């Protein structure tokens, strides 16, 4: 796992724009504010990172467009939506994953082995991957 200093340096070197689309709601979301603060801190590390915020209840069109049903949620978007989502305040290890996914999206490369890429390219049905994690 890379150190915070390594991650900050990597983000500072970003050369492609990445957008963090953040979904929140006004009431009943205790971790929405902490999540937004973490998103702000990450975005501050690079001019290439921008943040858009939408309200799950008020901005229904955007919520549907990104397939968001729960908050807090972060969609990592490069040239187009990548289908990468983070649900919950990204602490600890999840923060590392968020930063690494930003780097991955900016690079435009999936970062998989050649063999994996071939196998995955053949998939023509929707696959929804949900990985349950904890901060430590």
């Amino acid at each position, binding site marked *: 796992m890379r150190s915070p200093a390594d991650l900050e340096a990597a983000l500072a070197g970003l050369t492609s724009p990445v957008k963090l689309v953040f979904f929140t709601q006004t009431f009943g979301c205790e*971790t929405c504010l902490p999540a937004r603060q973490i998103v702000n801190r990450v975005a501050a590390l690079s001019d290439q990172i921008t943040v858009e915020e939408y309200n799950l209840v008020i901005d229904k069109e955007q919520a549907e467009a990104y*397939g968001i049903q*729960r908050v807090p949620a972060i969609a990592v978007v490069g040239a187009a939506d*990548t*289908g*990468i*989502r*983070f*649900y*919950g*305040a*990204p*602490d600890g290890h*999840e923060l590392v*994953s*968020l930063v690494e996914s930003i780097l*991955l*999206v900016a690079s435009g*490369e*999936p*970062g*998989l*082995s050649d*063999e*994996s*890429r071939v*196998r*995955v*390219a053949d*998939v*023509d*049905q*929707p*696959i*929804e*991957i*949900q*990985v*349950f*994690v*904890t*901060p430590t």
Partner: protein
Amino acid sequence: MALANEHITAAAVAAAEYPDLVRQYQVTGVPKTIINETGEILGAVPEAAFVSQMIAALGAGSETPRPGETNDGPA
């Protein structure tokens, strides 16, 4: 995976914040990966094994492990 194929979406879910999902998918340890609602991968597995299990989950039904069981791989 999500970057490699536009049909694939990938979400990291903070287990502590969504107890209803933890119950729904019977998450008792992390990481636990759910593929299309029914496929399960327990723990961290090597990339090739992940791809295999992900693709196997598409043929939902007989191939997917029942909750609490796992096909192979270290926990």
